[in-house]
């Protein structure tokens, strides 16, 4: 089963996305902060990380940078907010090596497509 790590500080988002992908036969782990995600990555190696940009504490961009320091081949897609400066991570995420990004509010089938595409690759 492909493994997906969802990192988001909003409980509702974590639960919803986890259920959504579990139904699609994906092994989902969640983390509620960048710090928690980095700790998890010491012992686990997911096939893909879905990472929210706007989080309390360490934000998604910094988390992405550190994830890439741990494992430069780790596949990460970013979930970005409505504000223009957040949209497409303001270009920064590509520099740190994110694979893709999805803008909130998002189309669920687009989310499904993007995640499945990168998980299967």
């Amino acid at each position, binding site marked *: 089963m492909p493994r997906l790590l969802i990192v988001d500080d*909003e409980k*509702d*988002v974590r*639960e*919803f996305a986890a*259920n*959504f992908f579990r139904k699609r036969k994906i092994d989902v782990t969640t983390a509620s902060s960048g710090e928690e995600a980095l700790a998890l990555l010491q012992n686990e190696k997911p096939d893909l990380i879905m990472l929210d940009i706007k989080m309390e504490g360490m934000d998604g961009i910094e988390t992405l940078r550190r994830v890439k320091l741990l494992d430069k081949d780790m596949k990460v897609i970013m979930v970005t907010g*409505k504000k223009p400066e957040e949209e497409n991570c303001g270009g920064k995420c590509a520099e740190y090596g994110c694979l893709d990004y999805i803008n*909130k*509010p*998002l*189309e*669920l*089938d687009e989310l*499904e497509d993007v995640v499945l595409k990168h998980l299967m690759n």
Partner: protein
Amino acid sequence: MTIDYKKELESAAKTMILVHDTQVLIKLIVRMIVHKVKVNHAAILLHDTEKDTYVLTVSRGARGLKVPKGFARMDKDNALIQFFTQRLDEKLFNHGVVVYEEAQELLKNDEIDAHLKQMLKDASYQMEIFDSRVAIPSFFRDELLGILLLGQKENNEVFGRDELDFFVALASDVAMAIRNAQLFRDLEKELDAKKRLFVHTTIALAAAIDAKDHYTHGHTARVTSLSLEIAKKLGERNHDAINEKFLEHLQFAGLLHDIGKIGVPESILNKNGTLVGDEKKKMQEHALLGSAILQPIKELETAILGVKYHHERYDGSGYPEGLKGDQIPLVASIISIADSFDAMTTDRPYRKGLSRQEAVDEIRRQSGKQFNPVIVEALVELYQENKI
């Protein structure tokens, strides 16, 4: 489905039409549906007119899938949105609702056109993604304003015909409410713009008077702001008449109080010395003249009282009518003090202005004579608090 909650929902929908914050009421409706109809979850996708997309605004459910607010959207080309905007629901079903099970049955039917079938298949897949069993569109005329999505019933029963009919009626009420709220918002925006235009026009007029009167540069702006300060102080002391509307009228009265000077010859306005005889009379006419100029503007009714009577005196010795005490409208009494205070503290070619302390002392001496004592007190307090 029992009759009592039906009534509750109906009355909620009726209230919605009156309330301009639809979000609150939509939440209420969704919550009620979840609790009373006992569905696992319910969600509403609303049309975001700015971005022209449908955003999942409310989602509730104890058991079912709870989509975080603002997380999901459906674009216009989304299969479910297309299904409704092309009114394929009417073509395939005759009750304005898509029921997932009915859709699955229909997909097995070979008589249906292949293209239509594909559309239905894509639309029902969208329902699947949201774990919904029923999708109810909300139309205002031909415009799809939103979609209500309902999950499975808690006891796994199918939805009854009467229930579905009721949801359709509810959806149309919701559409009306949303539409009303949008119209109301647009109207408010337009009103705000018109109000700004009016305020700026008034300021321009006030500047025209100031330009004519060389001695009083900036006088109008200072009188207006001091008047507002005084009124706010009166408001702090629970003066009943002071509310937002009053402050608005006072602002216009302040800006326009000397507009009648437009009809006073410049030789008199700018005379280097005391006015005598006819000159004085001409100058005093500016109060009545101002009110006559503004009289056609119905909206300025209260402000005009300020313009007309700002030279009346508390003891009845002022002009144009010699009003006394409380006969003088509050708006005029306030401007009168602000006007005098500014005149006293401004330098003139033939005399130097008084200090603030001296002006306040003079106004205090005139309390109950030239000025209304209550307003004098407010001015003194402002001075003591270093606000003027």
